[in-house]
């Protein structure tokens, strides 16, 4: 596990991880906890599973995701999230922007 600077990591996560959340939803409606577990598995994109929930609240406020409840036979009813059309558009836009951005950063860092 590479060592990473905490403050830098937090800074980088802002504005990016929410698009990762949207990207995960491209495959279809997903439970909050499943998203949380996928994204926090390596501890890089998210600090703890719980940090997903304020993020989802923001995405919902911005109209990029919407939520529905589903009864579950084993356990409490669970909320699951899906992309809205706007959310879909947002993630497309991010994908278009991210690759050149990432390459530019890598190139710059590699130049020293």
């Amino acid at each position, binding site marked *: *596990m*590479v060592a990473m600077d905490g*403050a830098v990591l937090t800074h980088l996560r*802002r504005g990016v991880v929410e698009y990762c959340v949207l990207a995960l939803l491209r495959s279809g409606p997903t439970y909050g906890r499943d998203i949380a577990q996928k994204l926090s598995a390596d501890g890089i994109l998210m600090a703890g*599973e719980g*940090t997903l*929930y304020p993020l989802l609240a923001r995405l*919902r*406020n911005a109209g990029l995701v919407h939520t529905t409840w589903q009864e579950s036979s084993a356990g409490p009813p669970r909320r699951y999230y899906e992309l809205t059309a706007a959310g879909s558009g947002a993630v*497309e836009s991010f994908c278009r922007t991210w690759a050149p951005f990432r390459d530019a950063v890598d190139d710059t860092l590699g130049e020293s």
Partner: protein
Amino acid sequence: MSEVMSDAQRYLDDLDRLLRTADPADRAEVMLSVREHIDVAVAELGHEPSDAEMRRILADLGTPAQVAEGALGAAGDRPSPAPVPPATSPPASPTRPALAGAWVPPVAFFALLIGSLFLWGVVPVLALIAGIVLVCASPLWTTAQKVLAAAVAPLLIALPVILSAVMYLQLTRVESSSDQGITESSGGGSPIIALLLVGLVIAGICLLVATWIAGARASARLHADAEPVDTAPR
């Protein structure tokens, strides 16, 4: 079951207090989601969670401070519905829940203590007010604890001090016409009253000490691993 669920309840209470300054709708939504997360995790276990299992569930969530951070710093960070990246100006460091640092309990303790003990000075009165405001505004204490620290304890300490001063003044006025020496300031001839008043002051101080300890524990709980830690792959 109750021990373990009280860990979860305390986590949720801590989170709820930290979210006090967040947008009410966001606060409600985050609390709901985190509750659901814990319920689902417990249901998946298929049995009552042990201490260790619950601690694992809560640790996976992150500390209440980490979770709340996302809701607190976010007021201006809404991603726009149009396909434009959010125009955020991130602060140099992540937003911390306010008035939850380790400095709060000791500062509150001394402000309340000095303020209550020396209530006849301007500076102590200001200190008392500052202490009361600090305790009331901080998310480190429950409402009950705040009432005890900001109202009951200062009264327990200040009243006896004021009463002693009043009795002392009456005593010296009465005795200025006699040759008797000045007796115990809080006595007036009754050691029982003196003991009672001293007892009240001690009780008030103990209450403030308990407040300090509770606040320090809450702060530690909220900020354990507040910095993102390198976690090993699960």
